[in-house]
């Protein structure tokens, strides 16, 4: 190796070290960064809420609540866990992995169809050849859908179940399949349809079928940003977060959490 080449190699390594140092420096700014695992259906509202937070930075991981809870059970430690149901945070609380959860929002399950669809009611779902996307049995949106179908007559339920052709791991997948026309209908939250900005239409379910959709949130145990985590949650109960949730179409927390 000649001196010149070695010099260039050293220079390249030094440059690499500088870049790495600069990148590391980016993360180490004075504002603490809060890591938040949140249900996919919260994406829009939570991103808007983050814009209003002045004294903390937040980094979100959006996915199906069940997958996020499984990650926490496997040792992944975000600072906050926000779920599209109360069952998962309660189960993690029972295992002492999170602090006591609170209910911070409600939502409505709706039948979602692409704009201009010929489907106008639950009865239309039973027609042969109709394709339906739902959530998997464990992701909250899928579990709520099971509740709705369970309240139908066995004959109706069987006919609709026959047309279920796709089980997605989160609401994002169902929205995607609907907006690409890959399925005729799907069960989503009212807020997902609103966030799709005109591409989708919501068909309300009869009140007797509507499940009690409640969102639970909890500080994850062992966080080093406890104060910020509690501040983030407080803002969702009254403050900028509550406003963003309302703007996105979320309902106040149901009284029977």
């Amino acid at each position, binding site marked *: 190796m000649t001196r010149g080449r070695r010099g260039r190699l050293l220079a390249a390594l030094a440059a690499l070290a500088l870049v790495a140092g600069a990148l590391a420096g980016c993360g180490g700014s004075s504002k603490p960064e809060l890591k938040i695992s949140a249900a996919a259906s919260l994406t829009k509202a939570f991103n808007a809420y983050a814009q209003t937070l002045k004294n903390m930075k937040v980094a979100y991981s959006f996915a*199906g609540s*069940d*997958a996020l*809870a*499984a990650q926490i*059970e*496997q040792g992944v430690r975000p600072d906050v866990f926000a779920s599209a149901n109360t069952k998962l945070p309660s189960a993690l609380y029972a295992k002492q992995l999170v602090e006591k959860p609170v209910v911070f929002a409600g939502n409505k399950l709706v039948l979602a169809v692409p704009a201009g669809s010929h489907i106008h009611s639950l009865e239309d779902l039973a027609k042969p050849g109709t*394709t339906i*996307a739902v959530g*998997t*049995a*464990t*992701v909250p949106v899928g579990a709520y859908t099971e509740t709705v179908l369970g309240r139908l007559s066995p004959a109706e339920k069987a006919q609709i179940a026959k047309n*279920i*052709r*796709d*089980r*997605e*791991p989160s609401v994002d*997948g169902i929205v*995607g*399949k609907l907006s*690409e*026309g*890959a*399925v005729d209908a799907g069960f989503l939250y009212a807020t997902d349809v609103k966030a799709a900005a005109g591409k989708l239409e919501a068909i309300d379910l009869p009140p007797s079928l509507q499940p009690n959709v409640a969102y639970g949130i909890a500080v994850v145990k062992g966080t080093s940003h406890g104060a910020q985590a509690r501040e983030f949650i407080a803002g969702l109960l009254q403050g900028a977060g509550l406003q963003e949730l309302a703007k996105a179409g979320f309902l106040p927390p149901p009284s029977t959490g």
Partner: protein
Amino acid sequence: MRSAPGAWCSRAFAALLAACLVAVLAFLALPILAIFVHSPPSRLISALGEPTARKALLLSLETTAIAIAVILAVGTPAAWLLATRTLPAQNAMLTLIELPLVLPPAVAGIGLLAALGPEGIIGGVLSSLHIELVLQTAGVVVALVFVSAPFYIRQAHASFLALDRSVLEASADLGAREPTTLLRVALPIARPGLLVGLALAWGRALGEFGATLMFAGSFAGVTQTAPLAIYDQFATDLPAALALSAVLVAASAVLLGAIKLAGRGAAPGLPALR
């Protein structure tokens, strides 16, 4: 002219190389090992008995086998043409074939939907021919072919290019037409390289997740392949997900080993002439 510091330097360099190799091996082997540590053999066998897992594995075998058959049947002649002729825009064509290699699977899934989905650019043509892909097993096969074909075709092209021209010319001189030369001379000689390509393509197809989920969806027995079932079970039943993963690792390893054996360990892209 090697002084003492020089000897020290080369020993240190050798140690560095060894340390890097150990790091690579440990890093790559650890997650695979962990899967087996977490799932004892008895758990593996009981996992295979679960209908969801069994359906998913069978579907994976079925769809990857069909995809590989399609890739071999169409990809081999295409690679032969590219390797034996000078075509206009040859490099552009090769780059195009290699593009899915570096494409994120989610992009592949969106692309397939935008092209072949119900509202895709040729979706109307397909539906008028009563060809349905989205939410169908056939759609899984399409996604698998898209993501894994480049692995085979690229390798086949390299293997055909590496053939000794004089052997092919001799075949022609002896009166063999091109199809005969391809089947009786080129394919047997290029076989080791082709098999390596086949193994890489099959392995990629077995592991396919993103494009399948986005284009074909996930439904047990129809479109839920083994990787999709693993993701599904991750949230509910981690031991089952680990067991299914272990089966997939074993299946992939057996596949790779068998094909390497059949190819007699030829180095990729350098099929030995015998």
